[in-house]
Structures are given as C-alpha cells and as structure tokens.
C-alpha cells in the first residue's frame, strides 16, 4: 500500500474535509506546493485558489479556499481556510468601524467605571427576581 498522509480542511464555521491522501496540492503565497507523506514541517499562508487532494483510491478531489493557512507535520496536513478574502486595508476599515461604534456608545459620559451604580442596578434586578420567586412560592402554597 502506498504511503498516505492525513488531511484536514477546516474553516471557522465548518469542517470541509478529513481523510487520507497520497498527495496534496495547495496554493501557497509563494506558488503552488505539493505535499507528499513525510514532508518536512511547513507553515505557510495560502492565497485564494484550489486545494487538490489525491485520495488512495486514485480519485482527485478539489476544494476552493479563499486564502488561509497551511500547516504540514510529517503525517498530518492541516488547511485552515478563511471564509472570505482578507486584505490588510479591509481589516483596517473594519477596525475603524468598530472604533467609531465604540465612540458612539461612549458619547457624553466619562470613561471611569461607576462600579457602585452598576452593582446597585444588578443587585436590584436580582432582588426583583428573588421577590418574584417568593411570590410564586407563596401563591403555590395557598392552593
């Protein structure tokens, strides 16, 4: 039997493929790489493209990835696929948007945490819950 290597392709929201392969091809940023069993440990980024897997049955499976990471250990290949194409400036824009929303939430108030007030409100909510609980118990007994 030919030597095989275990391949896992996963994305953050789901598992895409898991099984043995004779050979794996992946679109690394430096050009396509082919991984055979007992490859040296490798860590690289992927660009959008096709990951191809040659199964021991001689089939060839292909999966599209929109970038991600590739990790190679001698007997395991892991493809951590991104869900969407990522670009530095897009990430930056998302971060700025998050900051803007935070500033909106922070408007007209101080950055100092008012612990006393916060705890008072939480305690009040808890007290209300307890009161309701007591009322329920009492009405339960009267029946």
């Amino acid at each position, binding site marked *: 039997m030919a030597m095989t290597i275990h391949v896992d392709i996963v994305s953050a929201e789901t598992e895409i493929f898991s099984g043995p392969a004779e050979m794996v091809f992946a679109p690394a940023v430096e050009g396509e790489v082919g991984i055979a069993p007992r490859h040296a*440990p490798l860590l690289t980024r992927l660009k959008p493209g096709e990951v191809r897997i040659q199964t021991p049955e001689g089939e060839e499976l292909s999966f599209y990835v929109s970038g991600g990471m590739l990790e190679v250990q001698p007997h395991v290949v892991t493809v951590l696929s991104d869900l969407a194409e990522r670009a530095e400036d897009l990430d930056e824009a*998302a971060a700025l948007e998050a900051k803007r929303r935070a500033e909106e939430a922070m408007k007209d108030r101080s950055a100092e945490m008012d612990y006393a007030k916060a705890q008072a409100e*939480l305690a009040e909510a808890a007290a209300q819950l307890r009161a309701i609980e007591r009322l329920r118990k009492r009405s339960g007994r009267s029946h």
Partner: protein
Amino acid sequence: MAVAKEIRTKIGSIRNTQKITKAMEMVAASKMRKAQDRMRAARPYAEKMRQVVSHLAMAHAEYHHPFMEVREVKRIGIVIVSSDRGLCGGLNANLFRTLLRFMKEKEEQGVGIDLVTIGSKAAGFFGRFGGNITGSVTHLGDTPHVTDLIGTIKVMLDAYNEGGIDELYLAFNVFVNSMTQRPTIERMLPLQPAEDEELRHHWDYIYEPEPKPVMDALLERYIESLAYQGVVENIACEMAARMVAMKSASDNAGKLIDELELIYNKARQAAITQEISEIVGGAAAV
C-alpha cells in the same frame, strides 16, 4: 356583573400573553438546536487551530511572537460577549456581575481596563456605567460570521501589539447544557501553550515566506476563532436561557389564569345568589 366582566378581560389578556410566551419558547428551542449545531461545526477549526498553535509554541523559532511573551501587566483588554436582545432570564446580568467582580479586583491592583463589546446588551450596560469602550459590534443576528468580528478583535490586537494592553480576556457564557450556562472569563493573550511530549526535540517549521507574517496571520486567526467560538456558544446560551425563561412565564400565566377563573366563578355565583335573594325578598314584600 361589572366585576365579572373586568376579570374576564384580564383573563383574555393573560391568555394572549401566554400565547406569545409559548411561541417564543418554541422558537427559542428550535434556535437553540441550530446554535448548538453551529457550535459543533466550529469546533474542528478551533481544535486544529489550537493544535497548530501549540506546535508553533513548541517549535524553536528564531522569531518570538509578542503574543507568546508574558509582560508585566499594567492594562488589560476584555472582549465582552453578550446577547442583542433581552427576555433571556439572568444570562447577561450574571455575566456582568462576574465581570464586575473581576474588573474591580483588577482595578484595585492598579490595572487599567479597556473594553470591547459584542452585542447591544453589553454596549448598553457599560455605556450606562462607564468603562473605556474601544470597540463595539452589535446585531450579529442568530448566524454570526467570523468576518463580523474581525474589526473589533483587530482593535484589541493592535492595542496589544502597540503595548496599550498587556493581557486580553474573553468574557462569555459557556453552554453546559440547556438548563445551565456558566459565565466565564478566559485569558486569550498571552497564549498558554499546551505541552506536547512528542515534539520535545529541537525542530522548527519551514516558513514561507518569512516567520513573522506567517505567525502574525496564524495567531490573528487563532484569536478570532476563539472569539467566534465564544460568540456562537453565547448564542446557544441565550436561546437556552430564553427557552427556560419563557417556559416559566407560560407556566406562571397558566397559574394566574386558573386563579382568576376561580375568582370569576365565585363572582358570578355571588351575583346570581344576590339576584335570587333580591327576587325572593321582593316577592315576600308583596
């Protein structure tokens, strides 16, 4: 019969409320199942990611990533995961209480705190009571995507890289089962590498192109996947908590209706008795 009519209206209105809470309970139950599926679907990625990162921590790289360095703690960042909507029992309140205790402790040690909020309940709560919010995202819906979180997480990672914060925590509810959700505060940065005996010997990866950008990209994704896992888990918790809350609301409504029906019947009976005695009294007078 004025009293009887009043009670009847009240019973009607409670019955309507009960219908709504029952519907909400069923919706929450089905959403909870879906959220649990998503939680399960996200697990392989998180596990693989953890494996790769622990391999990386064991590798003897020339370049040491700042995410792995333990620094003296002067300021920390907390990513708070909450729900967008209420009517889910004490879920958010419990998390905030745990968080306040934690934050107070840190503050007493002279450690500053930056917050990033996910979900409008956290934004609202810390908006009212103060706290330095540096990033915020709301309305992720029932099917959040990793892409929605990138911006908020990047705010914290940038702060960490620039030395603005020295530790990063994630606060969310852990889904134990549909009856139990546990508020949890987990440290995300610096990383706590898992020990793996097999990889003890001296080795390193081949990095393409360079160790730094590869590690940057990998660890960034790792933190994002942790946060995503937290968000998905919190949604499952929210649905479970809402289901339980709505079930007890429906039960309470049922109890109230029973009580009111008893009062209504008594009132009706009293009215009839009164009428009869009036007629009898009138007849006797004639």
